[in-house]
């Protein structure tokens, strides 16, 4: 009896394991769920491409596709069929095997990661009580990162196997971009694991019953949002397909459905990273606070969870489109600088800070309570962090001020022809009164001469 009780205790403590209970899910039900999830993902992709074009259209004061089907809804389907009927060209310099393998890897790998996303809690399905989630494991979130890592092969191989300059450069750029931003993304997730004490997605969703992690782990949330755009090669970070420099990037040489696989992969990846963001930071399938409390949680879980999940997911998709509609593309060195010199160090520091906050909350740094039952250690840790952040900001600010002072202030009056070329005045500057053209010509020349002779003294 005592043994059983202690093992029960151990099980209750154990947050490694998924909270979702798959014991009542026979294999055929898993298969049905897998097919359903696949169909849902494909339909969502068809829809989001239409959605993107329509929304971008609205943002640019034009209607967007509106011919095929009601509101142009069938446009993507029509495009897909047309792509299938296009000629499948293989360049003569291509490495045939890898040229075919690359789109297969990119297309297949995009789907895998979505399997661990909890779409909702448990529901009754064909007489079984099963979670609306394909599967969950103690390392579920890592699985997404691992699959993303393998998916990069698709990009590298596509670029390399085309045997052409632009795809090679584009493939390298994309892969370097994806692996650079994967580090910051992986580090940002550590804060979530610290709060949830688990890497299982259903467990993380459950742990957000009280408060969504976008609040206590706000910095991770911001970093994740930035890195997810970088990971999916979307604007403003779609440097791999900067049309002005690399035409189509790694898929320049691809046509027909092989190209469609890369296209599909990109959009499914967008769904995956958005779904992961929803799960880790926005409470997953849980209803927004307020609605969650109605009727003792009647709208929180079961089939209702799907609604909340997809609303949050599509808010992220809108965010992607919004970014594309508003921001210009960044330059590659700026992009890498942001990733390596800003995101990685700040995220590391943030993770250490969260570890200290957690340590204080858990009473590792002493148990004494201050006012209102808040542990004193927590207050001290937060105060120390605040002081450090302020100190860094202050140092940076003085440095910036010194840099600004080094730039000599422009003079109040400016002779537009002093340097030999016409220069418009800066705001607040006054032009030297222009002299009539014929009289000015010798005057201006002499002023230039004076100017150039000055150093000679």
């Amino acid at each position, binding site marked *: 009896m005592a043994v059983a009780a202690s093992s029960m205790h*151990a099980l209750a*403590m*154990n*947050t*490694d*394991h998924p909270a979702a209970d798959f014991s009542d899910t026979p294999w055929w039900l898993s298969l049905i769920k897998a097919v359903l999830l696949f169909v849902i993902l494909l339909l969502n992709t068809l829809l989001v491409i239409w959605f993107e074009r329509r929304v971008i259209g609205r943002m640019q004061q034009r209607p967007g596709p509106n011919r095929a089907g009601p509101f142009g809804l069938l446009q993507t389907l029509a495009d897909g069929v047309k792509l299938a009927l296009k000629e499948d060209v293989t360049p003569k*310099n291509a*490495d045939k*095997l*890898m040229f075919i*393998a690359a789109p297969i890897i990119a297309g297949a790998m995009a789907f895998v990661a979505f399997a661990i996303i909890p779409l909702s809690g448990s529901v009754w399905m064909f007489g079984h009580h099963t979670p609306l989630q394909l599967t969950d*494991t*103690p*390392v579920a979130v*890592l*699985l997404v*990162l*691992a699959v*993303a*890592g*393998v998916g*990069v*092969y698709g990009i*590298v*191989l596509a670029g*390399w196997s085309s*045997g052409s300059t632009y795809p090679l450069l584009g493939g390298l750029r994309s*892969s370097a971009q994806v*692996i650079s931003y*994967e580090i910051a993304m992986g580090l940002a997730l550590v804060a979530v694991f610290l709060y949830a004490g688990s*890497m299982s997605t259903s467990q993380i969703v459950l742990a957000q019953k009280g408060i969504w992690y976008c609040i206590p782990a706000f910095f991770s949330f911001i970093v994740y949002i930035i890195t997810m755009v970088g990971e999916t090669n979307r604007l403003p970070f779609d440097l791999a397909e900067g049309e002005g420099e690399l035409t189509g990037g790694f898929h320049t040489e691809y046509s027909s459905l092989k190209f469609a696989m890369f296209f599909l992969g990109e959009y499914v990846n967008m769904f995956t990273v958005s779904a992961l963001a929803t799960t880790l930071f926005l409470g997953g399938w849980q209803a927004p606070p307020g609605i969650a409390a109605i009727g003792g949680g009647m709208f929180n879980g079961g089939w209702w969870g799907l609604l909340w999940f997809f609303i949050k997911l599509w808010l992220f998709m809108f965010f992607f489109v919004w970014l594309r509609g508003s921001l210009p593309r960044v330059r590659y060195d700026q992009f890498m600088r942001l990733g390596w010199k800003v995101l990685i160090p700040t995220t590391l520091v943030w993770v250490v800070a969260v570890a200290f906050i957690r340590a204080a909350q858990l009473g590792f740094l002493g148990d004494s309570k201050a006012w209102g039952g808040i542990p004193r250690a927590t207050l001290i840790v937060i105060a120390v962090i605040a002081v450090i952040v302020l100190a860094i900001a202050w140092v940076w600010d003085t440095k910036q001020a010194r840099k600004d002072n080094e730039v000599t202030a422009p003079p109040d009056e400016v002779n537009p022809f002093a*340097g*030999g*070329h016409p220069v418009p005045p800066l705001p607040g500057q006054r032009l030297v009164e222009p002299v009539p053209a014929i009289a000015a010509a010798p005057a201006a020349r002499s002023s230039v001469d004076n100017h150039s002779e000055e150093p000679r003294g």
Partner: protein
Amino acid sequence: MTHLGGAESTLFWFAAPLSVLGALTLLFARKAVHAAMGMAMTMILLGIFYITEQAEFLGIIQIFVYSGAVMMLFLFVVMLVGVDSSDSLVETIRGQRVAGLLFGLALLALTISGVARTTFPSFIGLDKANASGNVSGLANLIFGKYVWSFEVTSALLITAAVGAMLLAHRERLRPKLSQADWSRRRIREGVNVAGLPVPGVYARHNAVDTPALLPDGSISELSVSRVLKARGQVVNTQTLTAATEEFEESTGDSTQEEGGQQ
């Protein structure tokens, strides 16, 4: 547990030949990239094997680190060599093959003797090892029994970073010029202030290999890239303008007509 479960054995018999195939590809593929991909496949399948043995964290990390990161490094290194290169069977260092064989045998002997002398303590079983969860169990070992090796790993990582810098980093001799610097320099020197002229646009061709024409009909050398000139890929504008001149001869010079008259 001496017998494999039904699903597990099916997976094993499906995945094991594939992983052997990957390993053989590594050995026998002519192209280095194919060999690397064979190895990547074996790595991924190894990760899957670990997972079926309920070493989930290890399995995922195998895929995450080895297939995701280490193989990416291999792939980049292999691509350093170039697309068309394949394994050459000529020895570049004399006695290389014999030495390699000897060292390989020595390593094999060392491994066998090491493995042979290993004694296992009695097994405690998976259920107990994974009692507090696979990841937590591993964490307890890393931050408990093996904490020293864990700390030493960081030194290893420093070594890796320093080594990579030594091998691959090229020191910059003069500061990098930004777009603003270039623009300032152009203005100051008064040469090509508005940038270089763009390539020419012709009725039949408008790529970057067509030089622009100056007002006197000669071509502007600055309008095509030096690289293309060195490769001899610049299009001869005579062929592009000849057709127009021919047409003008037969119909009269259309540029003389103004006001949109046909």
